[in-house]
């Protein structure tokens, strides 16, 4: 090893790259317990092979691969590739750096800084990158940037990607502001925040003649760094991730003496990172669809079947099995009448007859017995055995007993339900749903419903992002106006009479009908209620909100028509927000009924118009049942009197 390093230092101007091989997170549990992230099979080829081939084709001559988990497996794999003279070994040297004491991305970089292996600009890769970017030209561009800005420390590589595309991870949505030199002045990760509004610092508009606000980008997780990046990580030991670094640099630009730039990829250059299962799925599809040409699935090992199915060696599919848009590993046995849709099955699995698998990931060496069903974002760890007729939906399953084992988690002798920490909070419903969405990109229609949740509240932001957005609808504008007025009123404790006046004036400004006014005002109030913190206190918050707006409600719900309008508003809000608490509809109806805003007859006649099979119908039913029961009771009381 020492002779190797000597050899390296002698050669000047070697183009270097760093790959951090671990995610340091629990996104890939339980599969990541046995397979390191770097060796995750993507179309039956280990992920790291794609990354290394990309670096080699991109013109990198020396790579430092930083691992801290499953070190031996990765080392073995790299040595095997070198022995087999894989394509990248000819033009690139790979040094594996092992440090089991590192617990974050930042730790790794601090460790590298201490080792002093890097000279000059280098390419920094976060885990799981598959790309076809030509790195040399980007390094050159970064070099030019450093010429006029000696503090330029990092060029982030971003790619244009449309909203709603599977390659755009909702957790990684970003908004950036740049000046005409592509310098990043503002960077915000939208994904995890629930904020509905964005604040841009005024300075950036005052100090620059031209600003671009960009939301049409996705992060490729590739960055070109100046040598100053590593010392910056060392000096600021609280930087754990690249995001911390970006945030810290933008906040304390003068003190840290570092600036950020970005480069937007266009054309056939593609970059993406497998950061969670959803991106795993997206990148698998994109590899299949040749977006990352010339990188492709290994033709030797794979066979391509109809319905976009890829199967590995020694895997046989019986005639009666229906398989669609899936990837099956090597030595998988598939039983008769099995259905597999949009799923990934790793090598050596045994699937018995009549099994249904959809939108799930089955780890290696799993056994699925007859008539079991694995659906909706389930992930099975290595060696799991699923019993006969078992139905698994949206669950993580592993073969060994988890530490926080609870009663009811046991699904079979070799299958235990795994709980992800954080899921047991108060907001269980919300987080489990978002968890589900992050695991797999399930279906077009599901995704759309998710869009609708964010839909109206993000409308300002959307107008920024969509370049070809349709002309705004007056009624929709009116609605956002009403929501704004009401929110402000509620926060500043304004008089409701003034709010009514304000709403009425917007009504004339946007020329909306009385019916629409009633509908939208109620909808606005109800939508506001959704923004309340969820938890035990939720309903008390809700009733406080509703009682605050009592004058508004009374003003608009005047006659029976208005009552019907408001009921429709409830329906609209309830059906477009799937993560509502079950009792929300009941509570709202009960409240409006108790306070005499809506009469019993209107509710009952409205209830009859509802589609009897819908989810919403079943939510309202208990309430109307209660109404009818109460009526009967009171009438029978009268009779007995």
């Amino acid at each position, binding site marked *: 090893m020492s002779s190797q390093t000597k050899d390296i230092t002698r050669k000047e101007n070697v183009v270097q790259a760093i790959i951090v091989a671990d995610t340091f997170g629990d996104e890939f549990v339980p599969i990541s317990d046995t397979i390191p992230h770097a060796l995750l099979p993507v179309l039956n080829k280990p992920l790291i092979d794609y990354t290394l081939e990309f670096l080699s084709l991109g013109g990198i001559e020396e790579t430092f691969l930083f691992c801290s988990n499953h070190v031996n497996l990765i080392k073995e794999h790299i040595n095997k590739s070198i022995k087999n003279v894989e394509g990248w070994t000819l033009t690139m040297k790979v040094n594996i750096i092992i440090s089991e004491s590192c617990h974050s991305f930042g730790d790794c970089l601090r460790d590298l800084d201490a080792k002093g292996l890097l000279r000059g600009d280098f390419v920094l890769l976060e885990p799981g990158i598959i790309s076809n970017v030509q790195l040399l030209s980007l390094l050159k561009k970064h070099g030019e940037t450093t010429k006029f800005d000696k503090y330029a420390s990092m060029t982030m590589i971003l790619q244009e990607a*449309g909203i709603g*595309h599977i390659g755009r991870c909702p957790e990684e949505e970003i908004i950036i502001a740049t000046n005409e030199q592509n310098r990043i002045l503002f960077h915000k990760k939208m994904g995890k925040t629930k904020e509905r509004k964005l604040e841009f610092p005024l300075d950036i508009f005052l100090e620059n003649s031209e600003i671009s606000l960009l939301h049409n980008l996705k992060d490729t997780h590739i960055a070109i760094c100046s040598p100053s990046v590593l010392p910056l990580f060392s000096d600021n030991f609280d930087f754990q991730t690249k995001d911390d670094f970006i945030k810290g640099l933008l906040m304390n630009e003068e003190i840290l003496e570092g600036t950020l730039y970005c480069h937007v990829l266009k054309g056939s250059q593609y970059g993406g990172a497998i950061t969670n299962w959803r991106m795993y799925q997206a990148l698998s599809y994109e590899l299949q669809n040749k977006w990352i040409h010339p990188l492709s699935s290994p033709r030797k090992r794979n066979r391509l079947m109809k319905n976009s199915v890829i199967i590995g060696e020694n895997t046989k599919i019986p005639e009666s099995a229906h398989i669609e848009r899936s990837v099956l590993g090597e030595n998988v046995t598939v039983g008769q009448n099995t259905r597999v849709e949009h799923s990934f099955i790793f090598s050596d699995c045994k699937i018995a007859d009549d099994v249904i698998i959809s939108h799930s990931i089955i780890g290696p060496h799993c056994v699925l017995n007859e008539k079991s069903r694995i659906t909706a974002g389930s992930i099975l760890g290595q060696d799991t055995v699923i019993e006969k007729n078992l139905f698994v939906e949206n669950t993580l399953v592993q073969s060994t007993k988890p530490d926080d084992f609870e009663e009811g988690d046991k699904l079979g002798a070799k299958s235990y339900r795994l709980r992800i920490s954080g899921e047991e909070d108060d907001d269980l419903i919300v987080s489990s749903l978002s968890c589900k969405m992050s695991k797999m990109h399930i279906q077009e229609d599901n995704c759309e419903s998710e869009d609708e949740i964010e839909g109206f509240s993000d409308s300002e932001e959307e107008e920024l992002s969509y370049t070809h957005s349709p002309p705004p609808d007056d009624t929709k504008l009116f609605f956002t106006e009403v929501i704004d007025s009401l929110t402000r009123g509620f926060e500043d404790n304004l008089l409701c009479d003034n709010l009514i006046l304000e709403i009425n004036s917007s009504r004339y400004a946007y020329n909306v009908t009385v019916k629409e006014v009633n509908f939208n005002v109620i909808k606005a109030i109800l939508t506001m209620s959704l923004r309340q913190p969820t938890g035990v206190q939720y309903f008390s918050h809700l009733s406080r909100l509703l009682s605050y707006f009592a004058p508004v409600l009374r003003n608009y719900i005047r006659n029976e028509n208005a009552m019907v309008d408001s009921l429709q508003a409830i329906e609209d809000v309830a059906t477009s927000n799937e993560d509502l608490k079950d009792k929300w509809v009941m509570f709202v109806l009960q409240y409006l009924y108790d306070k005499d805003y809506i009469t019993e007859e209107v509710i009952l006649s409205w209830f009859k118009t509802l589609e009897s099979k819908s989810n919403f119908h079943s939510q309202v039913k208990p309430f109307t049942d209660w109404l009818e029961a109460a009526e009967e009771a009171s009438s029978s009381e009268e009779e007995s009197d």
Partner: protein
Amino acid sequence: MHDKENLSDVSKLVSDIKHKNILSSLDIALRSEDLLKELISQGQWKSARELMNLVKIRIQYIKENLPHEATAANVMRHVLKVIREEYECESKRKVEGQSLHQLVTAHPADVLDYSESLINLKTSLIDHLTEYKVELESSGENIAAQASEHIHMDEIILTVGKSDTVEKFLKSAAKVRAFKVVVVEAAPLYYGHKMAVSLAKSNIQTTVISDAAVFAMMSRVNKVIIGTHTVLANGGLRAASGIHAVALAAKHYSVPVMVLSHMYKFTPLYVGSHNQEAFNICASPANVIPYSAGKILNSIQVFNPVFDYVPPELVTLLISHQGGNAPSYVYRLLSELYHQDDYDI
């Protein structure tokens, strides 16, 4: 392990092609030729058979790693034929013009097994390869020299995209004749634009048209002159995508289609468009529909094939440095270039 080490030369070639360090087919041909010369002069072989095995292993390696790369394998295949000939020549067993009678009555022991070690084989092979290299290098000029035979005064020539050979050919003709060139831009890569700029710089009257305008334009065109990626064994072409449509339009208007091709592009392979998997490469769809198109990409699958199969009946003439030949004559050229036993390696 021993085998792999021996292959370092060819894996370097493959990696250079993959890394796009060598781009044009001529460079690939020259590199392959150099590689073999190195192998012959430095390699560990004692008899012609051993040498042929070494070359065959390399051809297989290229086929496995670059299934669509024909040039390097063809050059090596040709060298195999050269080795056989030199061996026969050296061992003085070669009978000029074997008659059918001799073939039938030949004793099995007379069949050459190339196992003898001959002293002069190495030097004569190297001499022959040096000649071959000169032939490769001058091939482009030789093709261009025939330009004035094919292009006449005031003709309108249509070409597609960019081809170095076609460019040289047209420029050579422009020295003696005045004619017009229509360049089809060849979406989605639009190499036609570069071609047009280059031609216009040499004072050739050039018009660029879009791919859709080919049919409308064809009635005025006198000749279609194109380059190709490979010439297949049946005389068909594996050419840049879009050329099939051009050839069909030419057929409709009975316009002759001339294909300029170096000898190393003739491949003893029969592949047709029915087997797209083996025949074609799909490049990134980004040139067809940008990645930023968004949601629509979730529900569609976009193909951006690189090649078109042009059936032999649409090709009028194949022009190599030896002169023009009809596609039906390709089988004969192939048997001159390669030995029967080396067609399928």
